[in-house]
């Protein structure tokens, strides 16, 4: 029962708890206010604790009542058992006493000559005492009428004495008074030895005895006295009296008949105290309970027959006793000796439950507090984060805006300085102006860098995806640094693996920026040796890694040792892009001072330079590498470096580009080239340098052979092949000048159909070119670039008019790009229209104007002859975006059955900062230009279509 019950309690408890949690859950979803939530929680918590307290109290009470009940039951069982035993033994004794009464009636009265005398009686009773375990003695009193007294006394030899209560020690039968005269007497004639002192006492003179005798003869049954002090022994006893009749009376005899038939009275003395004690001793558990026996005939004043008066220990059980006398009532009262023990189990369980409740409450409280705290923290954090982000964004926007704003006046300053340079100035003034100009340019590039950084940080920088030629870009960058490298006498070279296709789709501007940054750094820190840019397919490099790592330091461009790029790339895995993407790996290798080891970890952190002195010596902001890293990341690539102090650094990065959808016919430049299919021989002992030269010459469509020395060269010449060009490294030439002269001489005398042209490849302008009598061959100053190479060759070979001067980007290039192009300009503002048209015309374009989007649509309905369209965005009626969408729709319908119309549409906007590529491309535009036009930006945008 108990485990079941406690199980129930747990189920209940768990049920309550789960209800709470579900409530918690429920209200979490709906109640947003934390304050309400908190008071709610507090209420719930208090409720929980109160509930827990109630449960624990209830459990305690329940268990206690259980224990009490059990105790009560035990007591009742014990008490009943004792009462029953007492009663049984009493009944046995009583029956025997009754039997004796019949014995006396039979053998004393019925016989004419009595068979019983005192001696016989005493002996008999003594021997049969075991039959009457509760009686301490029996005695027989005969009925004597007053008329018979004298005769009786004479016969017995003693007088009938009056029974007077006396104390035990003073008891002396001889002193007893004779019984007063009464109608009848009941003197004791026989008595067991234990009560022999009652012989001759008149039973009718004792108050209790008289009543007893009278009742017994009237009823014909055993009758009990109230407990009384026994004569002589003075102990508490009860006397059982049976009447002895002279004949057998029927059961329904009247009392009068019974009285008349009475012969005498047999009494048995029950010494209750000793008897009960004897009885209890037979039972083991005497110690555990108190037993009291009471005569309760008079209910208001029960007479104690046995037992001591004890303190009330609370629990009491009453068992009724029936000793066969209906007029007397007896009962047994039992009590535990000990007070009920402490209910350890109940107390501990209830305390346990209470403690658990408190703990659960505490846990919930703590949890709630924790949750609230975490939530608070979270809110605070998110607020702070938002602030921080806002601040960061604001900073970036501020930077972007400010640097944008600074650029405009700076351009003015630079322009003015340019103009100033053209005026007549003395040497000092010119120097000042040049310095000012250089500073201004530095400032502009710095601002550009900051703008980039800010744009990257504010996430505004988006990469373009246009078709571009990688090799051309590398050439551009080389020419940018050509001046410096020539000044320093550093070898500058670029090499692009032939596996890299001519055109790629990506962001050429940003790609150029990365390379420019890296090369700019390299050139800053390199005083001798080389700077070498290589571009490979990533797969290509991965395959050849093992071979490359073995290559010795001799196999470098300038022969100086380098920091190899692979050393720092262990464990690097490229991002695997879609199948049409191309991962390039670009390395910029230099033989400069290298980066100190302690500065290496923070090299990509913005505004971090190796040391403060660096910026003083070399200038720069330390922002370049950080921007490069961002840009490389935008291109899904990675950038890393390996640097050994005093040996050099190699920066490498990967970038993912995609293949143009339809590959342009490769080599169309080559085939057009003037030098197509010519044979050139490069004389160079250094294989890598020779490879670089070969790469550039091959780009012109020539065949190239490499020989390590001049002597080897001659043997080649004698063969039947026509050699058009011989390019000799300056190093080889200078090594043995006389030998070289001999070589030149031999070359002239070889008598070939077309004498090969001889060129020297050199790093620095105006190196030690003493002619020593012999005119030295024409010099091509490295770095090699296709355009430059072609120009140099042409000049010497008397080839072409076009002096492939790459010059003055963007204005000249703009003219080149735009000349003869038919361009539609759309703007509702006539003035703007006129200005834009004027500007484009200036660059040689053929311009058609339209003053509304509608007109533009009708003009651009294919087929048409426009090469491009510049469209104002904000126009009444139909804005630029809408018009573009319409035009694209038109093109799509046409394209679906015929050809591929896509006229480049560029947005014109006054607000360059807000305009984004994304927005433009969303409406099908190809880009945007600022209004009024900025030559640079115009060039950048236009070049994407017309290059």
């Amino acid at each position: 029962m108990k485990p079941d019950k406690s199980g129930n309690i747990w189920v209940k408890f768990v049920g309550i708890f789960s209800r709470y949690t579900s409530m918690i859950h429920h209200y979490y979803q709906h109640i947003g206010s934390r304050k309400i939530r908190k008071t709610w929680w507090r209420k719930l918590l208090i409720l929980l604790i109160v509930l827990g307290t109630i449960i624990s109290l209830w459990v305690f009470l329940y268990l206690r009542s259980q224990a009490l009940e059990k105790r009560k039951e035990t007591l009742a069982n014990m008490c009943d058992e004792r009462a029953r035993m007492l009663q049984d033994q009493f009944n046995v004794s009583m029956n025997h006493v009754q039997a004796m009464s019949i014995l006396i009636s039979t053998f004393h009265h019925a016989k004419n000559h009595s068979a019983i005398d005192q001696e016989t009686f005493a002996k008999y009773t003594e021997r049969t005492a075991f039959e009457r375990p509760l009686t301490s003695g029996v005695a027989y009193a005969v009925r004597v009428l007053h008329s018979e007294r004298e005769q009786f006394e004479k016969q017995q030899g003693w007088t009938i004495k009056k029974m007077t209560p006396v104390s035990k020690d003073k008891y002396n039968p001889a002193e007893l008074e004779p019984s007063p005269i009464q109608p009848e007497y009941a003197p004791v004639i026989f008595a067991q030895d234990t009560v022999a002192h009652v012989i001759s006492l008149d039973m009718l003179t004792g108050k209790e005895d008289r009543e007893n005798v009278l009742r017994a003869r009237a009823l014909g049954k055993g009758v009990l006295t109230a407990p009384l002090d026994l004569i002589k022994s003075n102990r508490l006893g009860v006397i059982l009296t049976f009447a002895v009749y002279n004949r057998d009376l029927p059961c329904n005899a009247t009392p009068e008949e019974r009285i008349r038939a009475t012969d005498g009275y047999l009494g048995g003395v029950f010494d209750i105290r000793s008897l009960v004690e004897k009885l209890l001793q037979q039972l083991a558990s005497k110690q555990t309970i108190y037993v009291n026996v009471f005569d309760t005939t008079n209910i208001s004043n029960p007479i104690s027959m046995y037992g001591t008066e004890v303190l009330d220990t609370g629990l009491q059980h009453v068992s009724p006793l029936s000793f066969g006398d209906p007029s007397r009532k007896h009962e047994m009262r039992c009590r535990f000796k000990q007070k009920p023990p402490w209910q350890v189990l109940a107390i501990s369980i209830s305390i346990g439950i209470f403690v658990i409740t408190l703990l659960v409450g505490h846990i919930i409280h703590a949890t709630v507090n924790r949750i609230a705290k975490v939530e608070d923290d979270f809110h605070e954090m998110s607020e702070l984060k938002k602030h921080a982000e806002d601040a960061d964004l604001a900073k970036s926007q501020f930077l972007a805006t400010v640097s944008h704003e600074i650029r405009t006046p700076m351009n003015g300053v630079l322009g003015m300085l340019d103009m100033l340079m053209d005026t007549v100035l003395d040497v000092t003034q010119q120097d000042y102006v040049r310095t000012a100009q250089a500073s201004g340019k530095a400032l502009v590039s710095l601002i550009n860098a900051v703008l980039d950084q800010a744009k990257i940080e504010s996430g505004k920088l988006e990469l373009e995806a246009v078709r571009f030629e990688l090799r051309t870009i590398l050439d551009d960058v080389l020419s940018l640094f050509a001046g410096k490298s020539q000044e320093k006498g550093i070898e500058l070279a670029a090499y692009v693996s032939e596996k890299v296709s001519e055109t790629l789709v990506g962001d050429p501007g940003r790609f150029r920026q990365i390379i420019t940054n890296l090369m700019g750094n390299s050139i800053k820190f390199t005083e001798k040796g080389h700077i070498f840019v290589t571009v490979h397919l990533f797969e290509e490099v991965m395959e050849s890694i093992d071979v490359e790592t073995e290559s010795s330091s001799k196999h470098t461009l300038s022969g100086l040792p380098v920091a190899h790029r692979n050393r720092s790339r262990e464990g690097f895995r490229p991002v695997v892009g879609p199948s049409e993407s191309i991962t390039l790996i670009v390395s910029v290798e230099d033989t400069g001072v290298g980066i100190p080891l302690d500065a290496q970890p923070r090299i990509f952190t913005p505004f971090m330079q190796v040391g403060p002195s660096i910026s003083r010596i070399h200038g720069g902001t330390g922002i370049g590498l950080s921007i490069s890293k961002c840009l490389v990341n935008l291109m899904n690539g990675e950038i890393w470096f390996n640097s050994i102090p005093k040996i050099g650094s190699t920066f490498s990065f990967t970038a993912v580009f995609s293949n143009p959808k339809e590959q342009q016919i490769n080599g169309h430049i080559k085939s057009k080239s003037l030098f197509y299919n010519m044979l050139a021989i490069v004389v160079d002992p250094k294989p890598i340098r020779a490879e670089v030269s070969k790469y550039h010459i091959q780009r012109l469509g020539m065949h190239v052979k490499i020989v390590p020395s001049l002597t080897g060269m001659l043997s080649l010449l004698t063969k039947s092949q026509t050699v058009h060009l011989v390019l000799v490294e300056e190093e080889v030439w200078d090594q043995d000048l006389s030998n070289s002269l001999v070589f030149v001489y031999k070359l002239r005398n070889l008598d070939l159909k077309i004498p090969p042209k001889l060129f020297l490849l050199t790093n620095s302008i105006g190196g030690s070119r003493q002619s020593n009598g012999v005119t030295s061959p024409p010099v091509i100053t490295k770095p090699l670039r296709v355009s430059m190479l072609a120009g140099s060759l042409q000049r010497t070979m008397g080839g072409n008019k076009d002096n492939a001067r790459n010059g003055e980007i963007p204005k000249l290039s703009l003219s080149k790009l735009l000349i003869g192009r038919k361009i539609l300009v759309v703007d509702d503002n006539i003035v703007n229209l006129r200005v834009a048209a004027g500007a484009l015309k200036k660059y040689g374009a053929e311009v058609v104007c339209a003053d509304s989007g509608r007109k533009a649509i009708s003009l651009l309905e294919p087929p048409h002859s426009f090469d491009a369209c510049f469209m104002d965005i904000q126009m009444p009626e139909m804005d630029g975006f809408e018009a573009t969408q319409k035009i694209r729709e038109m093109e799509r319908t046409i394209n679906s059955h015929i050809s591929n119309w896509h006229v480049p549409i560029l947005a014109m906007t006054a607000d360059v900062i807000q305009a984004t590529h994304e927005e433009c491309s969303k409406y099908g535009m190809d880009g945007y230009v600022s209004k009024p036009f900025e030559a640079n930006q115009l060039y950048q945008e236009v070049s994407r279509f017309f290059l």
Partner: protein
Amino acid sequence: MAAVSQLQRQFIDYTTSLYNEGYLDDQFTQLQQLQDESNPDFVVEVVSLFFEDSEKLLNNLATALQQKSVDYNQVDSHVHQFKGSSSSIGAKQVTNVCIHFRNFCEAKNLDGCLRCLQQLRHEYILVRTKLEALFRLEQQILQAGGSVPVME
């Protein structure tokens, strides 16, 4: 010849003052650069286009602002037009007033708009006078047989 050079100097001074006082900006220089042999009257052409356009716009603005319920969208588009054309020729002050005007327009502030219109008209007339003076000077130089100095 001396007259010509004096005129030229005067022209340069005048132009410089226009830049310095903020009537014109870089854009006007660019405009002048766009003018070449193939397009000899480009600047005058564009500027007179601007004058025509501006006068029309000023009238439109005046009528639009006199309406009982002013259509600010319409006003705004007019001002936008004005701003575009003025920035195209490099009339900086006019552009600046336009920017203010648009702010008032956005706030639907009729008083501000009217004040701006007043100011706009004032600035426009000012810049027109200045430019006309400049062109007159140019004409004089040309008539005197000189060439107009090119401002860079």
